[in-house]
């Protein structure tokens, strides 16, 4: 018979105010199996924990029941204290007499007291049958996979590599840098985006622990924390990057012109191309859809002219399999689709562009070499309108959330435009100005005061072309006037949305995403980088819209989680998981389909089901479904539960 100690906490007045603890103590001291019972004001405190430790030693306790607040609060605390006194931590159970008793029955003290006694008695019954368990260990591969090589992915890669661990950095474009590589300058410092990004890109490419895998996508993932197996599909570039010297002759000679995705169609690229002049790796790929040789067996000029003989039309895709211990998803964002921005004239009017397109227009390496010109006729705009909240804060017509960065980048655009066009006039239609970061508000106000930028408070209802101008109908609610502007160019600060295939990635990785497609964190306040799957973290705009400083910070946070995981030598996980009684199992496989964590598998040779311990979360679905009573959850067996219920009769 186990020697059980019961510790009843006052929890200050939270429990003591409602439950008559003298009565409880008296009843529990008489309970069969209880050799020691005491109450105290705050068992979670240092002296409180000391009482428990001393009692374990003095009374040779085999099991402990702490009657206090929810196990979510202090189960770990009490288990640790018990372990320090030499007791197996899984012989510690919590009887919740606060959230499930005193807090919800404030008006019924008599009944609450009796209920508390019942809860504690049932818990005593449970702990009587608890097994000695130890945390499960599994091996750990100290290599991280980072999906996405934008600023978030690169930052995380560097932080992990510089801590001494290997990184696989996966990028689906031919070169790295993400959207930040498309920006011209960044707020509020107006640093040239390429200038601050390129050193990072080079660092990533040259770091001996970072293996850069570009022009590749994730195909599949299996396994669990510490031990994932990933397959990666490397798309055929039709250029042998080992041989290529990046001389650029092929690009020059290629006759095919295709609208450049990097420049949003404002300029053309060739069928063989490098994403941008500062690309890392600076090696070209051939666009198989448009290449004349690959589609019609004509041309072939690049192969003829390449001195390094690097063109390889026969190149096939490669499937790579790797083992990693942790994954960081840093896939970034897209902008609200242009097809849905017709109300604001996008698509209909050539001179209505998105914020990212304006970045390319303003960029020295962009289609107009840094001259701000309008797409239809190359005229320099004198009247330029910026519209904020396009598709954001719009439950009826767009996304309900705020995209966080638009107020700032619009102010930045206004400032940059005025630098190049001091005679021009800038108008910004806004609802609010959200400039909460360091130096942000000052940046916005400076722009307004120095540049005489007119901030018009109101939304825009219609944009249309008339006689060469783009007419904008808006309102200024502050003065109470409907506004009409005949603009030369309009820039839309369109909403930030997750990548169009973010949901697909989430499914591959078995992590949750919210109704907008952003990856879902385990706890919005305290666990912002952890996904619902252990070992998979995220960073950057794939989780929610944010600016570059927050992205870099979050990437560092995700890297720290990975580093702390890798600093251990093995992965520990909770042993309160399912197990199979192999004698009783008939191999019906009902448990396998019932398991939502993919933690059940079938052993065909022995015709029984097995538990993949690293994945099992101990939910008990398999126990409920098993017709042969072969499945049980350790320390939460059907027998234990029935005993608890008996006690409550």
């Amino acid at each position, binding site marked *: 018979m186990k020697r059980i100690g019961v510790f009843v906490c006052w929890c200050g007045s939270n429990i003591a105010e409602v439950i008559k603890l003298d009565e409880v103590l008296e009843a529990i001291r008489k309970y069969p199996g209880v050799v020691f019972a005491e109450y105290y004001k705050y068992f979670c405190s240092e002296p409180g924990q000391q009482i428990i430790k001393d009692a374990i030693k003095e009374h040779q306790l085999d099991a402990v029941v702490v009657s206090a607040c929810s196990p979510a609060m202090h189960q770990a605390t009490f288990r640790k204290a018990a372990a320090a006194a030499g007791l197996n931590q899984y012989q510690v159970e919590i009887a919740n007499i606060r959230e499930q008793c005193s807090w919800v029955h404030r008006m019924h003290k008599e009944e609450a007291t009796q209920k508390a006694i019942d809860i504690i008695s049932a818990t005593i019954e449970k702990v009587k049958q608890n097994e000695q368990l130890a945390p499960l260990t599994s091996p750990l591969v100290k290599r991280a996979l980072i999906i996405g090589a934008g600023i978030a992915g690169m930052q995380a890669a560097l932080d992990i590599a510089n801590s001494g661990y290997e990184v696989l950095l996966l990028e689906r474009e031919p070169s790295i840098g993400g959207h930040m590589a498309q920006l011209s300058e960044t707020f509020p410092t107006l640093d040239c985006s390429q200038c601050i990004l390129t050193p990072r890109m080079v660092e990533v490419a040259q770091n001996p622990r970072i293996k850069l895998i570009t022009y590749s996508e994730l195909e599949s993932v299996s396994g669990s924390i510490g031990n994932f197996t990933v397959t990666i599909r490397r798309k055929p570039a039709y250029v042998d990057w080992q041989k290529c010297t990046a001389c650029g002759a092929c690009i020059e000679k290629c006759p095919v012109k295709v609208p450049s995705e990097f420049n949003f169609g404002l300029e053309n690229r060739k069928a063989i191309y490098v994403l941008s002049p500062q690309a890392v790796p600076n090696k070209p790929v051939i666009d198989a859809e448009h290449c004349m040789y690959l589609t019609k067996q004509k041309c072939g000029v690049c192969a003829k002219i390449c001195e390094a003989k690097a063109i390889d039309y026969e190149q096939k895709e490669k499937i790579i399999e790797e083992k990693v211990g942790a994954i960081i998803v840093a896939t970034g964002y897209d902008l609200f689709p242009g097809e849905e921005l017709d109300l604001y004239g996008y698509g209909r009017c050539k001179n209505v562009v998105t914020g990212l397109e304006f970045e390319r227009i303003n960029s020295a390496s962009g289609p107009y070499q840094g001259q701000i010109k309008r797409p239809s006729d190359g005229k320099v705009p004198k009247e330029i309108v910026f519209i904020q*909240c396009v598709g954001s804060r719009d439950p009826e017509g767009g996304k309900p959330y705020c995209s966080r960065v638009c107020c700032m980048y619009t102010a930045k655009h206004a400032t940059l435009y005025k630098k190049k066009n001091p005679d021009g006039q800038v108008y910004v239609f806004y609802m609010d100005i959200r400039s909460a970061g360091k130096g942000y508000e000052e940046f916005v106000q400076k722009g307004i005061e120095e540049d005489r930028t007119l901030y018009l408070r*109101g*939304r825009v*209802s*219609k944009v249309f072309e008339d006689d060469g101008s783009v007419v904008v109908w808006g*309102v*200024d*609610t502050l003065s*109470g006037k409907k506004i009409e502007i005949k603009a030369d160019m309009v820039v839309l600060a369109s909403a930030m949305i997750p990548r169009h295939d973010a949901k697909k990635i989430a499914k591959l990785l078995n992590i949750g995403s919210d109704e907008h497609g952003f990856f879902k964190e385990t706890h919005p306040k305290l666990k912002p980088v952890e996904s619902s799957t252990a070992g998979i973290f995220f960073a950057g705009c794939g989780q929610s819209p944010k600016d570059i400083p927050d992205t870099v910070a979050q990437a560092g946070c995700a890297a720290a989680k990975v580093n702390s995981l890798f600093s251990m030598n093995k992965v520990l996980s909770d042993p309160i998981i399912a197990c199979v009684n192999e004698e009783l199992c008939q191999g019906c496989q009902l448990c396998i389909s019932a398991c939502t964590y993919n933690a059940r598998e079938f052993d065909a040779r022995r015709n029984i089901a097995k538990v993949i311990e690293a994945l099992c979360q101990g939910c008990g679905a398999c126990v409920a479904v098993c017709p042969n009573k072969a499945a049980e959850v350790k320390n939460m067996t059907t027998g234990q539960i029935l005993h608890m219920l008996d006690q409550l009769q």
Partner: protein
Amino acid sequence: MRIEISHEKVNSDFVKKIEEISGENIFACYQCGKCSAGCPLVDEMDLLPNQVMRLVQLGQEKELLGCRTIWLCASCLTCFSRCPKGVDLAKVMEAIRVQLTRSGTDKLDLQEVSNEVLAETPQLGIICSFRKFTG
């Protein structure tokens, strides 16, 4: 110009009536002004459409009942179609109008409409006018 607002004003019978008759959540409007930006009849209005909504939020019964705006509305529904919050301003306008027309104030007098207008205007225009502007 100073106005006094209080719990009473914001939750007054007038505001409650407007909400009940229109069926709209007055506080869903976040004053973006898109309705005003698109309203085709805004030129002669004293209050902008979004200002009408604002004054309902502030419980300003007198100013609303005395304004010209609500009588210039043509119920074209452009405001409702464009509102990012799905608020039907046309219904709110109607709710304010009926406060007067139901209590005996007519804004259209048959005697004052010229025979010419009555003769040339399609019936449906005349029917609508009398439904909107009289009790």
